[in-house]
């Protein structure tokens, strides 16, 4: 160890978080005895103003050139203490943090053992700090264009916020129209305002905004680069109709002899589509109002003959030779607003979805109830008559370890909304079978109170099964719901004409792949993990990638819109800053030792390494390198060093741990 090292060691009590398990005084004494340590002190809250002041003062007074703080996780306060060093004129990379809270006091019961472990952790940090080298701080500029993935209400809100602020947005939606789930709803809870009336103007605004470049029927193919400087590749799927030529006259759909075949067994599609032509518009309010040809239903694509749409189109917009196109963009930030999909209840066999025709999912009902659905908004059974009684089963696919452990958060409220709409339209008897009613939002409990007053029946108990086997009088021709009424303590058999399953929300298909492309992770529930569950709800662990809406966790419309605006404001703050500091701890190749084997080139997840033919060696683009260390471990000639994680630093750290 170099005798020039002047190390200051600071042990934090973290209130009682650390001090209750670790003997702080003993650690301070122990640290004082280590080589190179000039001063060792403790304080109740090192991260507080006086705590930081203490370090600043010591750096000046003792002329310290290495700082070690033993406290919480670096995720929590490494930045804080690096800033302290910087303010005192010390390179921030000369700071080391020892985690004696999460990795010690919080996880150990025995106080003596915890103190011993804390000593080892502190020793490791001190030994490592002696070998630290100052690193240069690096800044990159931020491209003011933003990529928004998903054109539901979250993506629409985020895009409009950014576009209104004068920033360019590239909005990518995989369906043929933007609008997402909300566009399929008739009314929204708890105010019962019309979904189309509040959403359609926003959809149109997105379609017309000069700052928004809209890609529908498109998917994100690839994302590379880093914060401020992402490169994205978008696949625009062939819709066989030229968006620039089509004027949305609808003649093609009128004349199309084909019938769009709904996916097998999907009641929801059967209801929503009714019989539509093979060239179709997802809805009357679709943005853009450009039809799509469904290859699987199109007579020309299936049998090689027809092309009637092509003949009737006056604008020659139909193009059967259209192929998927690729577009590339440079963007500074990404907002993932990929939304959700609803749980498929056919796996819950006891509810007989798909087997009993009058058992519907929530989306089936939404679409039937929507004025633009196939029944024109009428609530009808499969035989075309109005139901006299309807049962709504809550928590289908939610709060169940076999499907999704979490609560889907919106089902209680939409179930109440359904109950109200059914009462209003048919005056049928409506039963809600629930475990708990979670009416947590503004005006939600009041809505529940209103429903109670409307004579909607509430039966507390999760439904055991739905059957059409009548064994009691009055059950013939009905769906019988067998349930324990847990508030009464009796098993009841409730005959109804129609059952609606309040299906939960789950991560949409392909979210994990999209997350991987953007270098963010999904949790075990399948939703994207936010940076911090409370204090970082729109950021992710990857700088420059933000999330909004139900792809983070199930959310209702008010929360989704709030999060979308929060995400866009976070992006705006990045754009306004113009520049951002990026990781200094990159990898470095020793040209003398590099054998030019190129193993590292393909392994680099950030594509930061390229091969220089002239010299016959690999070189690292520091702007792209994130310092992950993959190349360091893989290099067979030991030619690559990770700055801030050199062999010397790591070995001395290990020695410290074991001493």
């Amino acid at each position, binding site marked *: 160890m170099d005798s020039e090292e002047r190390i200051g060691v600071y042990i934090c009590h973290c209130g009682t978080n650390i001090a209750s398990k670790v003997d702080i005084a003993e650690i301070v004494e122990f640290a004082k005895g280590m080589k190179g340590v000039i001063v060792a002190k403790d304080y109740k809250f090192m991260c507080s103003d006086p705590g930081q002041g203490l370090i600043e003062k010591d750096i000046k007074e003792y002329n310290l050139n290495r700082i070690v703080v033993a406290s919480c996780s670096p995720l929590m306060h490494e930045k804080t203490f690096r800033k302290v060093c910087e303010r005192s004129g010390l390179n921030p990379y000369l700071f080391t943090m020892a985690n004696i809270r999460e990795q010690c006091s919080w996880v150990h019961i025995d106080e003596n053992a915890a103190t011993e472990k804390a000593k080892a952790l502190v020793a490791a940090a001190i030994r490592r700090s002696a070998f630290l080298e100052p690193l240069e701080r690096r800044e990159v500029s931020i491209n003011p264009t933003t990529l928004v993935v998903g054109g539901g209400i979250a993506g629409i809100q985020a895009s409009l916020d950014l576009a209104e602020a004068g920033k360019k947005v590239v909005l990518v939606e995989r369906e043929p129209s933007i609008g997402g789930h909300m566009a399929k709803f008739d009314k929204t809870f708890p105010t019962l305002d019309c979904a189309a009336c509040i959403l359609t103007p926003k959809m149109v605004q997105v379609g017309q905004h000069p700052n928004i470049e809209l890609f529908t029927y498109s998917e994100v193919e690839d994302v590379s680069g880093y914060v401020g400087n992402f490169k994205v590749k978008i696949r625009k799927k062939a819709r066989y109709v030229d968006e620039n030529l089509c004027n949305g006259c609808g003649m093609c759909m009128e004349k199309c002899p084909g019938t769009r075949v709904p996916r097998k067994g999907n009641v929801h599609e059967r209801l929503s589509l009714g019989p539509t032509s093979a060239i179709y518009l997802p809805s009357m309010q679709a943005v853009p109002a450009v039809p799509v040809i469904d290859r699987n239903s199109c007579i020309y694509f299936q049998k090689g003959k027809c092309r009637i749409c092509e003949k009737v189109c006056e604008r020659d917009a139909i193009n059967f030779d259209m192929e998927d196109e690729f577009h590339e963009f440079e963007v500074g930030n990404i907002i993932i607003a990929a939304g959700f999909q609803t749980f498929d209840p056919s796996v819950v066999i006891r509810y007989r979805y798909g087997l009993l025709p009058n058992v519907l999912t929530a989306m089936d009902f939404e679409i039937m109830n929507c004025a633009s659905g196939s029944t024109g908004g009428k609530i009808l059974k499969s035989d075309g008559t109005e139901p006299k009684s309807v049962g709504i089963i809550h928590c289908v696919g939610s709060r169940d370890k076999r499907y999704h452990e979490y609560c889907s958060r919106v089902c209680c409220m939409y179930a109440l909304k359904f109950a109200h709409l059914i009462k209003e339209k048919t005056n049928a008897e409506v039963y809600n079978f629930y475990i708990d009613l979670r009416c947590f939002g503004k005006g939600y409990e009041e809505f*529940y*109170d209103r429903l*109670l*007053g409307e*004579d909607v*029946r*509430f*039966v*507390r108990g999760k439904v055991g099964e739905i059957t059409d086997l009548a*064994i*009691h*009088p*009055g*059950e013939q021709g009905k769906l019988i719901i*067998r349930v324990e*009424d847990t*508030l*009464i*303590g*009796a*098993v*009841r*058999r*409730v*005959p109804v004409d129609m059952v609606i399953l309040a299906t939960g929300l789950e991560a949409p298909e392909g979210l994990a792949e999209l997350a991987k492309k953007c270098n963010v992770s999904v949790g075990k529930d399948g939703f994207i993990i936010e940076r911090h569950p409370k204090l970082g709800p729109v950021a992710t662990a990857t700088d420059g990638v933000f999330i909004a809406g139900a792809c983070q966790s199930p959310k209702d419309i008010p929360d989704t819109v709030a999060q979308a605006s929060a995400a866009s404001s976070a992006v705006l703050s990045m754009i306004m800053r113009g520049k951002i500091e990026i990781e200094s701890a990159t990898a470095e190749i020793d040209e003398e030792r590099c054998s030019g084997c190129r193993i590292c080139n393909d392994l680099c997840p950030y594509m930061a390494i390229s091969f220089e033919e002239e010299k016959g060696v690999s070189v690292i683009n520091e702007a792209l390198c994130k310092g992950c260390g993959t190349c360091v471990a893989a290099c067979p000639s030991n030619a690559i060093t990770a700055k801030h994680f050199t062999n010397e630093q790591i070995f001395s750290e290990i020695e410290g741990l074991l001493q």
Partner: protein
Amino acid sequence: MIEKDIVCEAGLEHNFLEEIYSLPGGAEIKKCIQCGTCTGSCPTSYVMDYGPRKIFSLIRAGFRDEVLNSNTIWFCSSCYTCTVRCPKEIKITDVMYALKRLAIKEGRTKGRKTAVLSQTFVSMVNKYGRNHETELMVRYILKAEFFNALKFVTQGWNLLSNGRLPFKPHRIKHINEIRKILKKVDELGEI
């Protein structure tokens, strides 16, 4: 008590709900959220077949016989604790009275001493304009506790020797007016 293991809806009386709603104070039970504050606060819930919370649940499910035959409505001592505490401001005690009246009307009072006591009390008021303890006790014991009458001797003697059982009833002035009120109330179905 609920005797059937599995209750089919055909065996329940759905009109019961509307029937209760139409009773004075009855409509409010629509708003019950089954929190259990009433049963949790009730000083006599421990002897009841069902607590008040469950009574409302049974009403809403259509368990007519179970509700009207239960001892719950007769064990309500009208302390009004539930009514004061109910988060939905349901006048639970009033509903209990409504249920009592319905049970009496249908003759479901066999063996319900409380029913006898309350009916005797009302007839006392009707007769004198206020209660007459001695006559009330005698008439109640003869009707409801005939075979236990001897049990009350010591208690009666103690009350008598302390001047708590006056022999002469006290009549109020203008008794006809209170009778008119009671008659009107009876017509409205409130007694």
